[in-house]
């Protein structure tokens, strides 16, 4: 349970541990979004705030402050939010919910180095405390490119916005990328931690807000039937895939020079690896979780021959899903000589008793076959089979696949007899689909994460140690790639370069087709 929510609930006679219908409602608070005109803000943040309000999880008096370089009045801002909510919200639009929200919307125009604008922001916050009872509790969401982080954070400090009045809190919320290598990540952390306490900084990795990712922990630690198999005695290898069918779209400026490994492997895939491989935490509070995740990340070892066990690729023009698409080098705003990877696959080993000798294969890419994220735990073959080799010809390895998105769920693959007079064994799958057993639309990751920020619940946010350790893992790979050759080309709409298949073939394995 979260720190301040638990503290507030303690001693409240209307709260009772047995009364589980009452939801966790955030305490009095407000959210300030920098870069409120951006895509993320319109498509994810604003709708998530509305959906939270609609589900009755925001406190009465919750206030939303936008900060951006626009000549807007409060009403103009409210109109922008209104349109964003109408278009993107998950839950149905209700006028009374909107009224409740709209009364607490404010807009502060300005650029990030404008002292006057930050003074206006300060006054706005004071007024909200008086008019709306936000109690001095504010979260600052930095939905801006990382190069502005230092300026914004320093401005918050300079104008006393980062200092919480006694009995209240001020929090910073930052989005990835958390740096582009270890040195820059450390620098960034120093800047932010110089202003906000480490425990008040929330790094959003929206993957961790997904129900399916949280379900990894439930699957592993609430059940008995999986955990006994979850080790080197039974597991042959693990494949973690995050594939996108889209290209880089309008993100050329950000993407070129960064590449898929930094964009995806460093954060999402290593977090998924940590959750899949970690030991059982002593409890589900943020401290115990980060401890176990760090422990396993610290045990991660890169292969000695990076040339043989890592692959990067770059998509070339081709047909994808019936549409003709450009190659990476032909995309607008990309240097035709760019060596940026749009596909990356690496093999990692984990040096501990549970996983020694079990490789974890991580791959990600753009313009691949389809959009899918999954974790596949592939088991060893039965050590002895009483059946003839011909009987089991079509039998593959048992596998447990956690589908993170889309079509969230869990699949188990095992062999079964084909009906008929002869003994023939073939792979079948047993499937659990979220959409089938639970709510048709589970809450968006951002809903959960914003609520957790307001509640001060840090479970689902990577800590700075994890971020830095992840860069430590990836940096040698990037350095090797910089010094050796260039990305392998692959045709858009396929499952990556040949070299990736060869990388697994060398180990006597092959990629699953997700």
């Amino acid at each position, binding site marked *: 349970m979260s720190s301040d929510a638990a503290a507030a609930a303690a001693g409240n006679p209307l709260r009772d541990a047995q009364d589980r*219908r009452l939801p966790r409602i955030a305490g009095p608070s407000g959210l300030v979004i920098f870069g409120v005109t951006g895509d993320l803000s319109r498509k994810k943040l604003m709708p998530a705030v509305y959906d939270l309000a609609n589900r*009755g999880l925001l406190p*009465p008096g919750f206030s939303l402050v936008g900060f951006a370089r626009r000549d807007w009045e409060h009403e103009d801002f409210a109109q922008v939010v209104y349109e964003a909510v109408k278009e993107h919200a998950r839950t149905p639009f*209700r006028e009374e919910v909107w009224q409740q929200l709209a009364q607490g919307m404010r807009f502060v125009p300005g650029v990030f180095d404008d002292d006057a604008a930050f003074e206006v922001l300060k006054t706005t916050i004071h007024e909200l405390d008086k008019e709306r*009872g936000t109690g001095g509790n504010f979260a600052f969401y930095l939905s801006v490119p990382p190069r502005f982080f230092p300026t914004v954070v320093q401005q918050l400090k300079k104008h006393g916005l980062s200092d919480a009045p*006694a009995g209240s809190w001020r929090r910073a919320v930052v989005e990835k990328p958390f740096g582009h290598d270890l040195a820059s990540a450390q620098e960034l952390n120093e800047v932010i931690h110089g202003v906000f306490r480490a425990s008040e900084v929330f790094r959003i990795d929206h993957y961790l807000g997904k129900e399916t990712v949280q379900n990894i922990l439930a699957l592993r630690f609430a059940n008995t039937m999986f955990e006994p198999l979850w080790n080197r005695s039974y597991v042959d290898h693990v494949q973690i895939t995050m594939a996108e069918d889209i290209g880089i779209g309008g993100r050329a400026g950000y993407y070129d020079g960064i590449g898929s490994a930094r964009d995806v492997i460093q954060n999402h895939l290593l977090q998924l690896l940590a959750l899949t491989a970690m030991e059982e935490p002593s409890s589900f509070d943020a401290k115990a979780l980060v401890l176990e995740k760090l422990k396993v990340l610290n045990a991660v070892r890169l292969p000695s021959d990076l040339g043989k066990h890592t692959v990067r690729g770059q998509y070339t023009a081709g047909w994808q899903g019936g549409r003709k698409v450009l190659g990476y080098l032909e995309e607008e705003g990309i240097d035709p000589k760019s060596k940026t990877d749009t596909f990356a696959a690496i093999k990692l080993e984990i040096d501990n008793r549970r996983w020694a000798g079990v490789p974890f294969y991580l791959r990600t890419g753009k313009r691949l076959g389809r959009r899918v994220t999954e974790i596949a735990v592939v088991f060893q073959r039965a050590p002895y089979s009483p059946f003839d080799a011909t009987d089991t010809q079509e039998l593959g390895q048992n596998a447990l696949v956690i589908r993170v998105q889309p079509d969230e769920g869990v699949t188990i693959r095992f062999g079964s007899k084909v009906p008929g007079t002869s003994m023939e064994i073939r792979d079948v799958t047993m499937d659990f689909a979220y959409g089938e057993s639970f709510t048709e639309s589970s809450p968006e990751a951002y809903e959960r994460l914003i609520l957790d920020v307001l509640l001060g619940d840090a479970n689902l946010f990577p800590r700075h140690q994890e971020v830095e350790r992840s860069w430590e893992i990836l940096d040698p790979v990037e350095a090797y790639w910089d010094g050796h050759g260039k990305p392998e080309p692959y045709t858009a709409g396929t499952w990556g370069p040949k070299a990736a298949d060869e990388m697994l073939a060398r180990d006597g394995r092959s990629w699953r087709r997700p």
Partner: protein
Amino acid sequence: MNIDLTHTTSGQVNAALVKARRAAGFPAVGMVLTLVIVTDEGNHYDALKAASDASREHPSRILVVIRRPGRSPRDRAQARLDAEVRLGGESGTGETVLLRLHGELAGHASSVVLPLLLPDAPVVVWWPEDAPSSPAADLLGTLAQRRITDSAAAEDPVATLAHRAQTYAPGDTDLAWTRITPWRSVLAAALDQQPLGRQRPRVTAAVVEGEEYNPSTELLALWLADRLGVPVERNVSEGPGITAVRLATPDGEICLDRPDGRLAALAVPGQPDRHVALHRRSTAELIAEELRRLDPDEAYHHALCHGLENLGAPAAVQAAPSGEPARSRRSGKSTTGKAAAR
């Protein structure tokens, strides 16, 4: 897909379900519970619609038991089961079976329902109206983990509530209680919010205002009395539903006021007034909330059985004698019946 069966048995209905699933191409079953709705011809449509909507959140096999005992001696003497299997389309995400129990069979619904329950999955029985006098003792009720009644649909809602308290068994729940969850969460949140540097104000008295004959008003008052250990007054208003709750504290009044059934105003001493969306929810939303947890609802139990003897009386609900928030005692005092029969 719809399959109609007349003069049938549960076995044939089961076979029809398998056939319908095969035809639809999804033999795997992801349903999490069986929901049995006990109703009659006139009311089944609305109840089924609500349950189908709720099944989008909780895929379930919905069994609608429609009793048709018949009026004439000839009708009453015969026993016949007609069934209608619905899969996909309008019927939500699970499977729906309408079971029409004619004649003598109407009194033996559990024999029809038992073979149709999903294996190893929880069972919920819902009586949209005309619940048996003791749901837990009812033959269908004994099959279920969770029994949902709706005292608001009864002829004398408040008396019904008193009766529910008498016959309460773990697993019972009432939609009148479900309806007040939003009220309860806002009130709990209001007490969560301490003014800076000050102690949480101690509530010394409470008032609940609501429509007459509204069991939710009573339950909210009972809950407050149980949790706060203070006298709770109930005032009759024009509605709709509950219109206001006032908690007296030494600093002033905490007031949650909802005159229009949609948007409420929250006033807390020392804090600005604020608006809270507090709309009256549809039956589908209520059922979806009910299905979220299938274990006994202790909070409901404590509230329902608190100060049972005072239920129905126009005076304030009495507080427990000690200052401690009262843990309910199921007192066997028989004044209830009289007070309720008022």
